[in-house]
C-alpha cells in the first residue's frame, strides 16, 4: 500500500501531535516548572526531612520486596515449569491475577484480611500492626509486583530445558549445586529484567499503598504519597512537581535499564 506524500505526512503529523499533547509537552512543562527557580530550589525541595524520609521509606520497601519476590518468584516459576501437579492451570491463573485487580481493590482486600476487623485481625491485638504500618505497605507492594519475576523467569526456564540440570545431577551434583551453577546463571537476565520491573512498580505504586498507609509526613509516606499530599494537602505545587521529577528521573533510569537488558536478553 503506497500512500501519497501528503497523506503520509498528515498521518505522521497527527501521530506526533497526539504524542506531543499527551506526553511530551506536559513533561516538558513539569521539568520547566521544577527547574525555573534554579537547581538549588529543586534540591532543597527534595531534601526536606519529609522528602528524605519518604525516599528512605520507598527504598526500604524496595529492599524488602525485591529479595522476597526473587526467592518466591523463582520457586513459583520452577514449580510451574518443572512441576506436574493437579491445579497447575489454576496456579497459572492466580499468578496473573494481580494484573487484573485495581490497586484500590488490592488495598480494600488487604484491609479486610489483615485489618483490625479482618480475618487475621487477631495479629493486631498481639501487637503486630499490619494495616497502617510498614508490613501493610510491603504486603500491598508484594501483591502488585508478584507476577513480574515469575513471568520473566518462566519462559527462560522453558527454553533451557532440563538436560543440563539432569546431566549435573547424574554427575553427582546436589540440588543446591545444580541450582547455583546451572539454573541460576541460565535465568540471570530474565531474572534481572523481572527485578527491574519490580523495582519500578514498587517505587511507583500509589493506590494500593495509600489505602494501607497512615500517611503521616515523615513517618509513613512513600515518594508517591508525598507527591499526592504536597499537591492536595499542602497546596505546595512546586514541591509536588519536584518530587514528581525525582520519581520521573528514577523511572527514566528504569526505562534505560529495561532497553539495555532487553537487548542483552535477546542476544544471549
Amino acid at each position, binding site marked *: *500500500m*503506497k*500512500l501519497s506524500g501528503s497523506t503520509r505526512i498528515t*498521518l505522521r503529523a497527527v*501521530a506526533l501531535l497526539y504524542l506531543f499533547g499527551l506526553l511530551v*509537552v*506536559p*513533561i516538558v*512543562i*513539569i521539568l520547566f516548572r521544577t527547574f525555573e527557580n534554579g537547581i538549588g530550589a529543586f534540591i532543597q525541595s527534595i531534601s526536606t526531612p519529609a522528602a528524605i524520609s519518604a525516599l528512605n521509606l520507598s527504598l526500604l520497601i524496595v529492599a524488602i520486596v525485591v529479595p522476597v519476590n526473587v526467592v*518466591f518468584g523463582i*520457586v*513459583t516459576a*520452577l*514449580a*510451574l*515449569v*518443572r*512441576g*506436574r501437579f493437579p491445579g497447575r*492451570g489454576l*496456579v*497459572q491463573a492466580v499468578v*496473573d491475577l494481580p494484573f*487484573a*485487580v*485495581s*490497586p*484500590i*481493590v*488490592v488495598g*480494600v*482486600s*488487604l*484491609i*479486610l484480611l*489483615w485489618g483490625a476487623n479482618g*480475618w487475621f485481625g487477631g495479629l493486631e491485638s498481639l501487637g503486630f500492626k499490619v494495616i497502617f504500618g510498614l508490613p501493610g505497605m510491603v*504486603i500491598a507492594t508484594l*501483591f502488585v509486583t508478584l507476577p513480574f519475576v515469575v513471568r520473566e523467569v*518462566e*519462559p527462560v526456564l*522453558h527454553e533451557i530445558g532440563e538436560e543440563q*540440570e539432569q546431566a549435573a*545431577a547424574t554427575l553427582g551434583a546436589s*540440588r543446591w549445586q545444580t*541450582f547455583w551453577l546451572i539454573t541460576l546463571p541460565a535465568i540471570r537476565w530474565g531474572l534481572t529484567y523481572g527485578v527491574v520491573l519490580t523495582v519500578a512498580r514498587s*517505587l*511507583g505504586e*500509589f*493506590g494500593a499503598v495509600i489505602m494501607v498507609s497512615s500517611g503521616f509526613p515523615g513517618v509513613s509516606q512513600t515518594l*508517591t504519597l508525598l*507527591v*499526592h499530599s504536597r499537591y492536595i494537602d499542602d497546596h505546595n505545587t512546586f514541591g509536588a512537581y519536584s518530587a514528581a521529577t525525582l*520519581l*520521573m528521573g528514577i*523511572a527514566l533510569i*528504569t*526505562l534505560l535499564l*529495561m532497553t539495555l537488558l532487553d537487548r542483552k536478553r535477546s542476544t544471549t
Partner: protein
Amino acid sequence: MSDTTTATGGRGTTVPSPPVPPTRKKVARVTGAVGPLGIGIATLWLSIIVVLPLAALTVASFGDGIGGFVDAITSPVAVASLRVTVVVSVVVAVINVIMGTLIAWVLVRDEFPGKRAVNALIDLPFALPTIVASIVLLSLYGPESPIGVHLNATQPGLIVALAFVTLPFVVRSVQPVLIEVDREVEEAAASLGADNVTIFRRVVLPTLTPAIISGAGLAFARAIGEYGSVVLIGGNIPRETQVASQYIQQQIEIDRPAAAAAVSVALLAIAFVTLFALRVFASRGQRREEQAE
C-alpha cells in the same frame, strides 16, 4: 497472558518418559529441581499474598447477605460511579484503537528523523508512576494551564489521564503484527486496481484486528481500575467524575467496608469478564489460523 498460552502449548510436545520403577530419584526428576516442597511453598505464597485477600474481599462483600450486596452495588452513587468508569474506559479504548493503530502504522511504515526516540517514548507511560502521570497532565490541562485548557474535574480530564496511562497497549500489540505483514498481498491488490482505502479495509485491517482488539481490551481492563492517574485530575465529584475506585476508597474512609467490598467485587467482575472474553477471542483466532494452514 500470551505467555501462559505458549507455555501450555509447549507442554503438549513433551515425550512421556518410559516407565521406570518409582525410586526416590524418579520422584525428584518428575518434579524437577523444586520437589513437592517447592510446589507447596509456591502455593502457600500465592495463597497468602493473592488468594486470601481476594477471598476476604468476596466474603466481606456478602457480609450483609445477598440483599446487602445488591443494595450496595445498586445505590445511585455507586451505579453512577460504575457507569462513569465504564463509559470513560470505553471512550479511552476507542481512542486507543484509532490513535494506537495510527501511531503503530507511522512507526512501522514511515521514516523520519527522530523515529527511534518517538518509539522509545511510547513505553514511558508504563515506566512512570501513575501519580506522576496525574501531576504531569495537570501541569498542561490543570488550573495553571499555560494554554488555557482547563480539564480539571471534568470527564475529558479523566479521559486524557486514562489515555496517557493506556497509550502503550494498542501501539505495542499492533506494531509487531504490522512488521510481519506480507506486503506482497497489498501490492497485488494495488496492481488489481484497489485504492488505498479498499486495501486498508480489506487487506491490512483484517490482519491487524486481533492485535487491535487485544490491545484495546487490555487498555479497557487497565482503565476501569485506575486510581493514581485520575485522583488529582478527576475531581472526585459524585455522579459526574467519581470513578469506581474513588467511590470504593470513599466507602472505606466513611467506614462502610461491606459496600466498598461489594463495589470492588463488581469492578473485579467487569475486569475478569473482559480478560476472559479476550482469551476466548484469542484462542478462537488461533484455531482459525491453524485450520487455514
